[in-house]
C-alpha cells in the first residue's frame, strides 16, 4: 500500500491516497463537491465542469473529478469563483434544453434539478432554447428526449465502458453534438441490446423507462432488492414497486457482485410476466377431460389420493418428480425431500442438462 499524502481542502487537512482524485479525497472526507458527468467505474472525462474547484497555484479552476491529488495541495471547493462558475455552467445547461420538470419522469430524481436547487438559481440569464428534437418513443422500453440531454456522456460511457456494447457514441460536434446510436437512428433501429445501462446512467430525464411513465413518482416507489429470475448470473436488482405492481427494474451499483448494478434486457425489461393476466390464480383439476378451477383442498386431496394409489400399486419408483432450476434452494430442497422421504423414491431430477 502506498503512503498517504496530506492535502488541505477548505482549510481542513486531510489524508488521501496518491492515486485518488480531489473529488474522491473530498468525498471520503465528507466534503461535498457537486458532479454531473462523473460516473463511477467509467473514465473521468471532466466534461461538465460542474465539479470545478480552486487549487492554489493552478492557472485556472480545475475539474476535481480528474485532477489527482498531490502532496501539499491546497484546495477550496467553496469560493466565489467556484460558485460563479458552477452557477454559470448550470444556467447554461438549463437554458440549453427543455428542462420542464412538470412533465419529466425524472422530477425528484434529477441531478440537474438538484444542482439548480443547490445553487439557488431562480432562472437562467439566457433565453431557454430547446433544440427541438423529436422525442423518441419508437420502442416500448426506453424513451429518449434529447431535448433534456446535457451531453454529460454518461450513457456513452455506460454503453462502451460498462456494458461494452459499443452502440452509443457522440456524433457531430460543438453545440450540435448529440449522443445516440450510429447514423442518429433510434434505439430500435440500431444494434442496441436494450440492457438499459444508459437509462440508469442518465442523470436527467433524457433517457427514461417507457413503461414506467406515469407509473409513479420517485418518492412513491418502493425498491425491493432481489435476485434476477433469468440466467445463472444471479444479478442483483431493484424491483420498483408502486401500489403492488412492478413499475420498473433498476440496477444498483452499491450492491456489488456479481453484476455491480448492470442488467440485461431480460432482467430489466422482461418482468411483465409477473403481472400478466394469464397467470394461474387457482388450482385446476381435470374434470371430464377439462381443466377446471378447484380449491387447494380439492387439489391436495386428489394428488394425495392418486399418487398414494400409484405408489401402492406400482411401488414408489413408479413415481417421478421434476424439481426446478427456476425455484429457490429451499423449494428444491423440500421437493427432493418430498420425493425421497414422502414418496420414497430417488426419481427426482430437473432440467440441469437442458
Amino acid at each position, binding site marked *: 500500500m502506498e503512503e498517504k499524502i496530506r492535502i488541505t481542502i477548505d482549510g481542513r487537512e486531510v489524508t488521501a491516497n496518491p492515486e485518488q482524485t480531489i473529488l474522491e479525497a473530498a468525498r471520503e472526507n465528507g466534503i461535498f463537491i457537486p458532479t454531473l458527468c462523473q460516473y463511477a467505474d467509467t473514465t473521468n472525462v471532466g*466534461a*461538465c*465542469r460542474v465539479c470545478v474547484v480552486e487549487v492554489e497555484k493552478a492557472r485556472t479552476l480545475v475539474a476535481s473529478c480528474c485532477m489527482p491529488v498531490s502532496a501539499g495541495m491546497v484546495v477550496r471547493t467553496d469560493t466565489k469563483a467556484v460558485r460563479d462558475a458552477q452557477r*454559470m455552467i448550470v444556467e*447554461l445547461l438549463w437554458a440549453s434544453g427543455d428542462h420542464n420538470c412538470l412533465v419529466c419522469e425524472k422530477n425528484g430524481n434529477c441531478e440537474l434539478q438538484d444542482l439548480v436547487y443547490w445553487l439557488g438559481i431562480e432562472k437562467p440569464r439566457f433565453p431557454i432554447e430547446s433544440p427541438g428534437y423529436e422525442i423518441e418513443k419508437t420502442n416500448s422500453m426506453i424513451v429518449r428526449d434529447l431535448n433534456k440531454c446535457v451531453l454529460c456522456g454518461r450513457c456513452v460511457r455506460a454503453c462502451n465502458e460498462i456494458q461494452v456494447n459499443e452502440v452509443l*457514441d457522440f456524433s457531430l*460536434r*460543438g*453545440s450540435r453534438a448529440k449522443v445516440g446510436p450510429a447514423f442518429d437512428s433510434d434505439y430500435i433501429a440500431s444494434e442496441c441490446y436494450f440492457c438499459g445501462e444508459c437509462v440508469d446512467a442518465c442523470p436527467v430525464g433524457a433517457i427514461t423507462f417507457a413503461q414506467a411513465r406515469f407509473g409513479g413518482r420517485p418518492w412513491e416507489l418502493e425498491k425491493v432488492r432481489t435476485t434476477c429470475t433469468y440466467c445463472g448470473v444471479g444479478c442483483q436488482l431493484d424491483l420498483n414497486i408502486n401500489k403492488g405492481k412492478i413499475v420498473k427494474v433498476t440496477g444498483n451499483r452499491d450492491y456489488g457482485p456479481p453484476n455491480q448494478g448492470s442488467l440485461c434486457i431480460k432482467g430489466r425489461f422482461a418482468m411483465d410476466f409477473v403481472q400478466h393476466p394469464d397467470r394461474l390464480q387457482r388450482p385446476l383439476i381435470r374434470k371430464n377431460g377439462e381443466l377446471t378451477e378447484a380449491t387447494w383442498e380439492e387439489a391436495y386431496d386428489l394428488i394425495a389420493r392418486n399418487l398414494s394409489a400409484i405408489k401402492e400399486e406400482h411401488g414408489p419408483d413408479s413415481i417421478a418428480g421434476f424439481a426446478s432450476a427456476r425455484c429457490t434452494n429451499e423449494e428444491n430442497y423440500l421437493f427432493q425431500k418430498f420425493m425421497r422421504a414422502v414418496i420414497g423414491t430417488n426419481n427426482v431430477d430437473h432440467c440441469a442438462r437442458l
Partner: protein
Amino acid sequence: MEEPMIGSIPTMQEIPFFAHQKLRVLRNRGIIDPGKIEEYIARDGYLGLAKALTEMTPAEIIKEVTASGLRGRGGAGFPTGLKWQFCSQSKGDVKYVLCNADEGDPGAFMDRSVLEADPHAVLEGMVIAARAIGAHYGYIYCRAEYPLAIHQLNIAIAQARECGLLGKDILGTGFDFDLEIYQGAGAFVCGEETALMTSIEGKRGMPRPRPPFPAVAGLWGKPSVLNNVETFASVAQIVLKGAAWYASVGTEKSKGTKVFALTGDVNNVGLVEVPMGTTLRTIVYEIGGGIPGGKKFKAAQLGGPSGGCIPAEHLDASVDYEKVAELGAIMGSGGLIVMNEDKCIVDIARFFIDFCQDESCGKCTPCREGTKRMLQILTGITEGKGREGDIELLQEMAVIIKNSSLCGLGQTAPNPILSTIRYFRDEYEAHIREGRCPAGVCTALKRYTVDAEKCTGCGVCAKVCPTKAAKGEKKQPHEIDQATCIKCGVCMEKCKFEAIFVN
C-alpha cells in the same frame, strides 16, 4: 561590370519589408528547392542532427535547447527544453515525437510556408527531439487543407529515409527514428495537443483532461512530445550554432525570432520573421508598408481566435510573449491581422467567437454552451438588439469560460471579446445604446441618409430603391425612410453626386 540600370533597382536590404527581418526559421526561403535534399544539405542541413547524434548526449541536447530559451511557437510559449526534459524523464520504452502542423488559426500560414519551402528543417528538428527524449517514432499531424505542404513533406521524408537520415541506424550512429504524416480531417480543436493525439488514435478529436500530461501519457498512453512546425524548424540551428547564438536576439524572456503571417489591411501581405521584441509599429509600418489607401490603423489581432486585439495606442509595444499577454492578446502561432478604421470591432469579436463556437468539440459545457451564448449576445449587438448589461454579462462569461473550460480552445476563446471590450468599449456601447455601428459595418445598424445640400433631386435613388424607401419630389432633396430601408446600399452606389452617406 556595372549594370546600366541596375542602380535603379533596390537591393533586398534596401527594401524595408526585407530589411527588418531576421531569417532563421525562414533562412532557406526562396533559395533552396524543397524537393532536393542535397540543396538543404548544402545549406548546412542535417549538420545539427549529426552533431546531436555524434557529439552530444540526450541530456546535453536538452540542456542546449533549454539554454537557448526557445519557447513553443505554437501559442502558449512553454519552454521547449523543459517539455523535452519532462518527457525524457518519463519511463517507457515507447515514446513519440509529434509535430503539430494543424495550423488552424484563420489568418495564419507560417507553418504551411515552412513545410512547403523547407520541410527538411522540420524533419531534422524532430529527429533531434527524438534523440533527446528517447523516441523512435513520430507523426506529423498536418491539416488536409495543405496539399502542397503534404506533397513536399512526403518527398522530403522519402529522401531522408533513402539517405539514412530517417529510419534505422541514422547517420550510422545506431539511432533509429521514423515518422509518418497524419492528415487532419478538418477540426480546429485538433491543434490542441491532447485532441491531436486523440485524433491520431483514430477517434473524435476531443481533448482529454490533463494530467496526465502528454509528457507522461500522451499518444496511446505513451510519453509524447508535441511541438509545432516552427519550433522544430528552430532546433537544428540551436544545436549547430549553440544556445548563446540563439539567445543573442530577442528580449529577456522571449529569445530568438518569431515568424508572423502579416495580413489584413496592410500593404505588404506576407510572411515575416523578426526578432522577438520588434515593435508592432515596425512590423505594420516598416515591414508591412502601412495601411493601404491612407486609412488609419485601428487594431492588430494577434494569436487568431485565441488571441486579442492590440489598438493603435500600443503600436510601440514590443512584440514578445510577456508584453503581448499583458496587452490581453497572445503570441499564438503568429497570425497578425491588421485592421483599419473601417472595421467594426464588435463584428470582429463576433467573427472570432463564431469561429470558436463552430469549432468547439462540444465536450465541455462552458465552451460548448458558453461560446454559443456569447455569439448570440454579440450577434444581437451587431443587429441592434443589444441590451444594457450585455457587456457585463459577456465579461463575466468570458472570465468563467476561460477559467473553467477543459482545454485551451475554451480557455482562450473569450480572449477576443475581453480584449475588444477592454480597448473598444465605446464601440460596443455605441451599438447597444445608440444603435450605431461607428465603422458602418453592421448592416442592421446602417443608416443611409441624404445630404440635402448635395442632393440635386435627380431621382435616381428613388428609381433604384427596391423598397421605395428613397423618395422625394423632383428637383427637391430626397429622403430615405428608415423604416422601409433594407440597407442594400444601391442608392448610395448609384448616386452621382455622392449625396447619400452611411454612418
